[in-house]
């Protein structure tokens, strides 16, 4: 088949109907641009929310849960080993929240090549004493440097610096807590631990996550301070938080560590299952909108081609009479459609990029995301590839049916009609 000639004929037919062609192409441009902008924006949003979640959730967390012993005495006796044993009213056993042999585990984990960093943590409920009232809250004793490296805690510190925690007996209070107790940086706060120890800590900073429930209860101290507060030795740790190079292997590693260290483990996915749902819903929405817009554009092309075929009956008849086969005619109209799709699609990509860039500079401020100043956009070449494939695919489909109709036109009928 002579594609150069077919393309030439298609181009001339388009030129004769330039206005409609442009309208059709604009339809494609618009839908592809919308698709690109939407998908970039939605994924930017996903990314941002993922970040928000990952800033608070380690990829894998090791801890001791309160739960019943897995091996009850009866399963340990030889006599009933092969029986099915029913035990009622089992009570959970508190083996202590402390992770046994934590130093060795951390040292071991730090050597693991899959792991970026390990941050030990102590989480404990406390009472903050403010005058005569006691406010319950939570203290996170953190390894300041590792914690900062993994979770960028400093992004949430609105007053003071996270490194201030390296001073002895210092604390960073959640904004909600500080407001409630009317405390500011420099003040001293009295804290009662679960076992009744009373200590005084100096406020060296205020943090704000932007989530009221968190800001109303949470505060940070260093590991040492937390251990002193609780009257525990320096190897006392309740959580080991692990940051991985490749977060997708978190579920497997979680399982591996559970077996190896005989600890409870949870990976970030399990801990934030609802986030995943949100992400996939957003992705589905952007693709659905893109597809719907393209279908609309496809109908536009379909209409224009149909109209063109009615207008060009004579031309089709004479092309066939002078030796163009039905297949040639079909290809003429498919190329027509493809040209519209290609040109419209390329402009769509361009405008999609422009729209994305515009969204990218629109100011967007929220207290929960202090580092974000504009709407999030995630740029990824793959969206552009998908966009142009979408455009070509839809226009081919839209063009195929009119083109087949054109290919079936009986020249005798047309010529007789004159």
């Amino acid at each position, binding site marked *: 088949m*002579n594609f150069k*000639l077919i393309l030439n004929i298609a181009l*001339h*037919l388009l*030129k*004769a109907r330039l206005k409609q062609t442009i309208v059709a192409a604009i339809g494609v441009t618009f839908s592809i641009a919308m698709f690109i902008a939407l998908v970039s924006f939605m994924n930017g949003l996903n990314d941002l929310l993922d970040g928000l979640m990952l800033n608070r959730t380690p990829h894998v967390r090791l801890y001791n849960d309160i739960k019943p012993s897995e091996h009850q005495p009866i399963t340990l006796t030889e006599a009933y080993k092969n029986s099915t044993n029913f035990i009622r009213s089992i009570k959970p056993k508190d083996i202590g929240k402390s992770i046994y042999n934590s130093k060795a585990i951390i040292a071991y984990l730090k050597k693991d090549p899959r792991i970026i960093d390990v941050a030990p943590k102590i989480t404990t409920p406390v009472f903050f004493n403010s005058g005569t009232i006691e406010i319950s809250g939570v203290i996170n004793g953190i390894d300041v440097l590792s914690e900062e490296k993994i979770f960028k805690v400093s992004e949430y510190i609105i007053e003071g610096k996270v490194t201030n925690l390296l001073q002895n007996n210092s604390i960073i209070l959640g904004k909600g807590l500080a407001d409630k107790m009317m405390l500011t940086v420099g003040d001293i706060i009295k804290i009662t631990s679960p076992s009744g120890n009373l200590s005084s800590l100096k406020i060296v900073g205020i943090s704000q996550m932007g989530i009221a429930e968190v800001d109303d209860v949470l505060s940070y101290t260093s590991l040492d301070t937390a251990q002193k507060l609780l009257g525990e030795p320096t190897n006392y740790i309740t959580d080991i938080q692990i940051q991985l190079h490749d977060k997708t292997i978190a579920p497997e590693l979680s399982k591996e560590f559970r077996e190896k260290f005989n600890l409870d483990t949870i990976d970030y996915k399990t801990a934030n299952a609802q986030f995943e749902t949100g992400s996939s819903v957003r992705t589905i929405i952007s693709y659905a909108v893109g597809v719907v817009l393209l279908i609309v554009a496809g109908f536009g092309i379909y209409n224009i081609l149909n109209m063109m075929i009615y207008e060009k009956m*004579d*031309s089709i*008849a*004479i*092309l*066939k*009479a*002078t*030796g*163009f*086969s*039905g*297949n*040639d005619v079909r290809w003429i109209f498919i190329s027509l459609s493809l040209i519209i799709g290609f040109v419209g699609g390329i402009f769509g990509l361009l405008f999609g990029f422009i729209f994305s860039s515009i969204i990218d500079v629109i100011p967007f401020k929220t207290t929960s995301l202090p580092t974000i100043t504009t709407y999030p956009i995630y740029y990824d070449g793959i969206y552009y590839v998908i966009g142009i494939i979408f455009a070509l695919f839809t226009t081919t489909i839209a063009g195929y049916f009119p083109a087949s109709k054109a290919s079936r036109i*009986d*020249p*005798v009928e047309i*010529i*007789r009609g*004159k």
Partner: protein
Amino acid sequence: MENNKVLETIGLTKYFYDPVKFKVLSAIDLSIDHGEFVSIVGKSGCGKSTLLYLLSTMDTDYEGQIFIHNELVTGKADKVLAQIRNENIGFVFQFHYLLIEYNVLRNVMLPGLKLAKYSEQELEHRALEHLKTLGMEDQALKMPNQLSGGQKQRVAIARALINDPLIIMGDEPTGNLDKKNSNLVFDIFKELTLEKKQTLLIVTHDTDFANKTNRIITMEDGRIIS
């Protein structure tokens, strides 16, 4: 079997089914030799155009057989028939059917571009030659809507000639033309048969035109009567 036949039909029969079954052509046997200038005449509605469409291979719904250059074309695929038309048959209709998107020169070249036997430059040269013999070389770059009826018809003839077809078929090619233009077209046809040994098969109502051709086929009610 070596002979001079360009076109031959055996027992060509055609029916129309709408609104009632109706035999338009019955058992037409016809043979046209190389270099003949043949006209088909007959009353309106006797089936002349129908016969021509069958011979042109555009209408494939018939009984009987058609041979072009001693080769059976009946039952061939659409693609093959298109190729045969492109290479062997030139058409001139009552209406010119020029593509308004292309200029005169491109219109003439189009079947040649499809055949792709000659390069584009060569085709352009040949197209200009044909336009010249038809007295149209100075109109080559005009668009079809800038031409008169007679001029358009001459462009259509040039287009029919571009691939040096075995046979040129015409369905009342002078039907839309006045006497002067009609004579002009006849002279062109005559010249083609004399100088290029071009075979021509022309349906016409114009008895003057028919009387000047080598052979007249007269039809009546779907049959050839002489």
